[in-house]
């Protein structure tokens, strides 16, 4: 009798051009922010000087896409704004899943274990590690 395979952790990665996020902000403005970002992410981005706003939003967009890849929930119709990057006072960032994003992860049997963000020049990237939930 073969043993049930133990599910392995999954990794998701995404890379975003900051200038393209800036273009979306200029073209679609409030609608772009409201459809994609959690209210607290918008507050955090808008606290920054204008030149840094797109950078913050680009890193967060990359995190959302990396999370969808790690959790494999892109087929579920998970709104981007329900995947939130939350920054603690010490500067660490973590992912918080809301509503249908939380339910989709639960149904997939995975939870987000870790998030890493970076940016350099015109690019922002994120890596998400998802762990199987026993």
């Amino acid at each position, binding site marked *: 009798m073969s043993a049930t395979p133990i599910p392995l952790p999954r990794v998701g990665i995404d890379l*975003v*051009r900051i200038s*393209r996020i800036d273009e*979306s902000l200029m073209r679609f403005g409030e609608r772009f922010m409201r459809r994609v970002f959690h209210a607290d992410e918008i507050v955090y981005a808008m606290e920054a000087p204008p030149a840094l706003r797109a950078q913050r939003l680009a890193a967060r*967009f990359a995190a959302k896409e990396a999370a969808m890849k790690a959790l494999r929930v*892109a*087929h579920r*119709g*998970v709104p981007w704004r329900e995947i939130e990057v939350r920054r603690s006072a010490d500067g660490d960032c973590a992912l918080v899943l809301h509503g249908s994003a939380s339910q989709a992860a639960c149904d997939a049997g995975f939870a987000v274990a870790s998030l890493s963000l970076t940016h350099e020049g015109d690019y922002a990237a994120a890596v998400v590690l998802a762990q199987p939930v026993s």
Partner: protein
Amino acid sequence: MNQPMPVLDPVAHDTHAEKIRRILKQHARLNTDADVLEPDSDLYQAGMTSHASVNVMLALEGEFDIEFPDQMLKRSMFDSIASIQSAIEELVGR
């Protein structure tokens, strides 16, 4: 006295598929001309990123005066011109 001929705005009379192709040309950053794509060609394979799909979604909402509900925002909805057209026609009626 002859009445002046009405001037037809060609964009206003585009079919849904033509409007979708126009928006893809403007926002999807495809590596192929949207006019020559087959209705079921894979847009992600043609170079559309997830971020570009957001721009396409917002432009479609503006063009068709609709708002895609959250449950429709699946990766598969943006797979092809045919899948986008099907979603739009579900929202606006044929």
